[in-house]
């Protein structure tokens, strides 16, 4: 009988899973500056003018527009793990979020290619399998064309 592997984030504490997933940033309690990936609790605020050391979790906007994009025609070296054999190229997009004032990288979902993606295109965040190990399905965030 097939056993369902547990699906776990490929990196801990950077995003939620389930419906309408979001990226999890950090927010400085003193001045409100947001950062992604979330800053470590020992780091404090990234603004050099702020002395804040207390950070809280911040849910980033899950929609944005493509700021720029490229693709990976050749398989990246480890620790990248190709989910397919043979390797299939993917599109990488830098997305300017609709709020929070930052640009976040992510792969575009499968089916996108450099001819179909455009700068300025609206996208939304999804969470999908990145690759599988013997024990788990590793999850990562991706960008999907809005309304697709």
């Amino acid at each position: 009988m097939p056993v369902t592997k547990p699906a776990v984030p490929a990196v801990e504490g950077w995003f939620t899973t389930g419906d309408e997933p979001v990226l999890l940033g950090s927010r400085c309690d003193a001045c409100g500056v947001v950062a992604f990936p979330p800053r470590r609790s020992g780091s404090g605020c990234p603004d050099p003018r702020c002395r804040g050391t207390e950070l809280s979790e911040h849910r980033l906007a899950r929609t944005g527009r493509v700021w720029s994009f490229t693709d990976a025609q050749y398989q990246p070296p480890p620790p990248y793990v190709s989910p397919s054999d043979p390797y299939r190229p993917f599109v990488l997009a830098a997305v300017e979020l609709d709020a929070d004032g930052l640009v976040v990288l992510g792969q575009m979902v499968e089916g996108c290619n450099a001819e179909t993606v455009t700068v300025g295109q609206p996208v939304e965040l999804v969470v999908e399998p990145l690759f599988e190990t013997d024990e788990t399905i590793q999850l990562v965030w991706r960008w999907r064309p809005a309304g697709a």
Partner: protein
Amino acid sequence: MRDDVVVLGVGMTAWGKWGRPFVDYGVAAAREALDDAGVDWADVDLVVGGETVRNGYAGYVAGSTVAAALGFNGAQVATVYGACASGAMAIGHGRAQILAGLADVALVVGADTTPKGFLAPNAGERPDDPDWLRFRLLGATNPAYFGLYARRRMHLYGATESDFAKVKVKNARHGVDNPRARYRKEVAEEEVLASPVVASPLHLLDICATSDGAAAVVLASADYAARRAGGGAGAGAVAGRPSVRIAAVSTVTPAFPDTGLGLPDIATDSTATVAPPPRSFRDSIAHTAYEQAGIGPDDVDVAEVYDLSTALELDWYENLGLCPAGEAEQLIRRGATALGGDGPTVNPSGGLACFGEAVPAQAVAQVCELVWQLRGEATGRQREGARVGISANQGLFGHGSSVIVVR
């Protein structure tokens, strides 16, 4: 000026993919620089190495590894690492020690042996390392970032793949007569566009290779240089040759909030609550160098800039102030930055397009080329009458550098 730091000698191996230990290259470049300077190794009282991170412990302590290979002479030693800026940081350290009166003659060396293919993070499971994470989570190679920057130029300024290819054509032509270049063959625009896409919109021939190689400079206080010129062994090596001095070394970090999406970042800083600084990170690297040297972009005759990709060279034109933002394509289209063009000559050596990148050596190699240009010794690729040269590069983790040399 008495407080100047003079470049007494330069040395550089040919760039290639030989697979020999990095120290062999480092020693060859060091010996050539010492001979060029007419300085005995025994006279060197400071050795500064650029660290190489892919060659084991010997690479972590590159300064002492090269010193030991030359025969330990009791000099002070330091090894520095700043990704692609390592070589400039090494020069900066040597210069500062000399300016502080703590050293008279410094040997600065960068050398590397690189693996084939994409540069990748060191092996092992290292989920706390941002460089490891960008590969694991996103498959974001270095060329992927170059592709993102290139696409942004196309969107903002109407750049085309043909504009990018023209940079390769120019640099390939510059490198043909450079005996130290790895690739010495003219390349046609059509060949660039016909080469396979690596990271859209960039083709294989838009992106630099990784190489083995080493470069070295011998720096000295103005007093030491004057004493040498006064006579004694080796004085002939500098007689009749214009004196080249280091006018600036900039190794600034970005200022918050940095909107540049530098390697290996997965996101930019947020501008939601704090406005971006007046200058981008790359702009600030050059600006700081100009301020130190007391000159501006109009004074520049030659520039050696980090053409990791062809499109990035266009970014640098603007970052160095050679033209306003959005006008770099006009410079390359009319041949302004080529030898014989009507602007500052950019990458007369052939640049990374002809050399490939040897990380800790590259920023030193840029300075070597500028020194040859200012001395009028760049046979076959000489910018006539060059008096002011500037280098520029950017590397991982908020590193970048610019060095200005003048005669």
